[in-house]
């Protein structure tokens, strides 16, 4: 094929305008991202690279769960893009008679790479189009014109490529048609340069970087230290910071591929709430960022949606492009500390925390008084947490006693701290960082005098260990009781006899599985005691929140939302005899939900803590 000088000039003009536009749009977004607070971290480089390999190259998240087939189709398209990189370069170079492929290479590349991938890529994109436009999964949202355009673009690219190559090997049409075909291919590639940056297709540029830069901690809310002696300027700066996104959050928003998986898994959304994380936590912030050319958009998050969030992190866990989706922490902190606008039931809770150091406003605890007090000769501090201490589910007191029975039989010495205050989890989750700090400072002072702490409340573990260390140098180690039990089992300090043959399942608490990454420990313990163990539909890190997270335990029942009932319903439908959990709040929610929801003709399901099932079957 011969190219006229005018054609060459036109091509250069077209491509350079496309590339300029693309780069301009990309830099515009990067400039906004860099205005975000906090810096990107590149710590643990090998782990980050491995993550990119897993999630980009191997598509581990894209093709997970019920979206396996859609994920595989996506892989065809993505690999198509990668393999066609060289072909595209060669394509444009032919216009200047500078082809990098000699005839043999070109032919072999076509036979072994180009042709098969052109077919796979076309299959992929048509499959995805079938899913989007014919099956129409709800999560994908309304009709997307750019997606339709992309389908046409990619299909055209592949067909024009095939025609071009076949014609090259066995000319079958006149030069004009061949030229039109060549230009059509070029036009579509150029079109992508204009289409990508202003649409969700930006993910194909940004997602590898976003996955690489994603913080390891889930959630990864920045600490908000408050100095009550700060000057007015320092205070203004702190308040201004509360309205800003971090660099990582800003990059997330430009990377979003709009797949809606976050909304699909959101317990608030599934329970009939208004919260739609795809929009409220991500897409609603995109235009304000572009319009203001800045990251101070926290006040654009829907406040009501923010209060509905259980902070369970299912949205972040499922995101295929590496977003930390949840922004409840940001909008709640803004509402509480900047606006002073807090729902009344939460005001009561926060007042209780400030005045009495516990969530219930109680002046004493029967359980705390009954337990042996910690002295330095004892191995473990048994941190009770408000839930157990104030019998928020009276049955749970028995679970605490079962745990102490296990410790006793393993010969582990333990004691409680008489001045234990709430870990501050509800204040932290509600965005009242001042009350949180007050409780934390008290607790850290006491805990730094001890070495090992264990608690049955995963919320307490997360705070005592992960959250406190964002603010303080902590000198103690915290383990969840299921981890302690699992250690004792592995060390042979306790033995369990397999119990009855009833069906037993396990509900993973969000804080334990997603935040503390503890999935196996409690399972090992349960499986040792329950031969007929089976998994729920959503388990491990893909667990469904019980509905109590994010301080929603204290939310007054508005009568409409069903977030707090979804998991209990799933458990009932599983027809299990017993459901075991590893979190006092989950325990309380299961008891509250299962009782009234179980149909009359079904046997009542027993709710147990891991400590219960182990203690009952200890030998």
């Amino acid at each position, binding site marked *: 094929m011969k190219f006229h000088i005018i054609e060459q000039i036109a091509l250069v003009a077209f491509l350079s305008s496309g590339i300029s536009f693309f780069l301009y749009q990309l830099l515009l977004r990067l400039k906004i991202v860099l205005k975000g607070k906090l810096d990107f971290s590149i710590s643990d480089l090998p782990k980050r690279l491995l993550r990119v390999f897993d999630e980009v190259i191997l598509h581990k998240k894209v093709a997970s769960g019920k979206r396996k087939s859609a994920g595989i189709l996506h892989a065809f398209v993505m690999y198509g893009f990668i393999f066609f990189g060289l072909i595209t370069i060669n394509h444009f170079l032919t216009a200047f008679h500078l082809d990098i492929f000699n005839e043999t290479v070109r032919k072999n590349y076509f036979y072994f790479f180009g042709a098969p991938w052109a077919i796979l890529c076309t299959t992929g994109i048509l499959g995805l189009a079938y899913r989007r436009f014919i099956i129409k999964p709800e999560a994908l949202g309304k009709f997307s014109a750019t997606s339709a355009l992309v389908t046409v673009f990619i299909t055209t690219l592949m067909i024009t490529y095939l025609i071009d190559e076949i014609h090259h090997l066995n000319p079958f049409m006149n030069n004009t048609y061949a030229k039109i075909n060549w230009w059509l291919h070029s036009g579509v590639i150029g079109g992508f340069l204009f289409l990508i940056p202003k649409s969700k297709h930006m993910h194909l540029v940004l997602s590898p970087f976003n996955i690489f830069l994603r913080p390891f901690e889930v959630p990864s809310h920045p600490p908000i230290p408050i100095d009550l002696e700060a000057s007015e300027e320092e*205070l203004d700066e702190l*308040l201004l910071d509360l309205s800003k996104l971090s660099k990582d959050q800003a990059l997330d928003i430009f990377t979003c591929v709009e797949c809606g998986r976050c909304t699909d898994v959101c317990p608030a959304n599934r329970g009939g709430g208004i919260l739609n994380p795809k929009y409220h936590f991500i897409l609603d912030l995109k235009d304000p960022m572009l319009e203001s050319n800045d990251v101070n958009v926290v006040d654009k998050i829907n406040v009501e949606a923010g209060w509905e969030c259980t902070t369970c992190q299912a949205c972040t866990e499922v995101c295929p492009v590496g977003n930390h989706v949840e922004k409840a922490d940001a909008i709640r902190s803004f509402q509480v500390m900047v606006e002073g606008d807090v729902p009344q039931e939460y005001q009561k809770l926060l007042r209780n925390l400030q*005045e*009495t150091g516990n969530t219930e406003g109680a002046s004493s605890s029967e359980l705390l008084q009954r337990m042996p007090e910690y002295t330095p000769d004892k191995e473990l501090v048994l941190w009770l947490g408000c839930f157990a201490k104030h019998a928020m589910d009276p049955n749970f007191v028995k679970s605490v006693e079962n745990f102490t029975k296990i410790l006793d039989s393993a010969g582990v010495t333990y004691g409680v701290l008489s001045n234990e205050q709430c870990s501050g989890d509800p204040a932290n989750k509600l965005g009242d960082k001042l009350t949180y700090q007050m409780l934390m400072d008290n607790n850290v002072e006491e805990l730094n005098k001890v070495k090992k702490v264990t608690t049955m409340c995963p919320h307490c573990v997360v705070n005592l260990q992960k959250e406190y260390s964002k603010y303080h140098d902590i000198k103690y180690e915290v383990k969840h009781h299921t981890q302690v039990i699992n250690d004792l089992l592995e060390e042979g300090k306790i033995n369990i006899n397999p119990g009855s043959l009833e069906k037993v399942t396990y509900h993973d608490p969000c804080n334990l599985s997603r935040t503390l990454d503890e999935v196996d420990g409690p399972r090992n313990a349960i499986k040792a005691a329950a031969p007929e163990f089976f998994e729920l539909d959503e388990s491990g890190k893909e667990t469904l929140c019980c509905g109590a997270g994010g301080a929603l335990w204290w939310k007054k029942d508005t009568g409409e939302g069903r977030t707090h009932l979804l998991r209990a319903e799933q458990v009932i439908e599983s027809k299990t005899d017993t459901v075991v959990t590893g979190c006092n709040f989950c325990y309380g929610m299961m008891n509250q939900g299962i009782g009234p929801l179980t149909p009359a003709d079904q046997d009542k399901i027993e709710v147990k803590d891991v400590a219960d099932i182990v203690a009952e079957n200890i030998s």
Partner: protein
Amino acid sequence: MKIAVLTKAIPSYESSIRVDSSGSWIDESVVNFVVNESDSYALEEALQIKEQLNDDSEVVVVIMGNENNTSKVLKDGLAKGADRGIFINNENIDTDPLSIAKLFSEHLKEESFDLIFSGLQSDDLGSGQTGVLIGELLGMSTATLGIETKMEDGKIKVKRELESGWFQWVTLPFPASISIQSGINEPRYPSLKGIMGAKRKDVKSVSASSSGDNKQKFIELFIPKTEKVTERIEGDVDSIVARMLDILKNTLKVI
């Protein structure tokens, strides 16, 4: 518009109450003092009126008692947005509404407030008279049990909650003293800026004149005994009545 909001620090519901060594008052050292519930609604109403007027209106929190018990409550009022505070230091324990009203009036008089808001009643003593008595002492128009207020040209309209689901709208000329019912609005939470700014706000500290004329005296304070005693009274009508009279007179000593 100058608005005073009377607030009271009362023992929290969750506090463990015990009688002190005198036997006539509670042991305040183990009690957690918090703002009286309806007072926090009164403060919110005042703050909303100020915001609505959007002029140089002023909201002043007024509190009486000893410093230990009241300082937190006063600070909280300032943190929520009151412009300044008046602390009437009173080490005595006055319980009679009229003497309390007199002590307040003494210090409120010179301020010439256009509006005085108070909570409907205190959750500890529950007399529910202070606001209306102050109004009378200072020659103000008064209304109680306000569940809605509307500012009108030179007047304030108040919706009062009567019994059996009846309501009444009254229009009061200024100055007016109005007691506010709980639940009338959604009290705000102190923002960080409010909390930090409260430290710089002006608090006028005055001493209550010795309240020699307290008309009320607590002779003995006791925590009601809770015990389960069930006695089944059987027999004919006369013997049942006789037994019941005996219990009421001699055991329970109520007749």
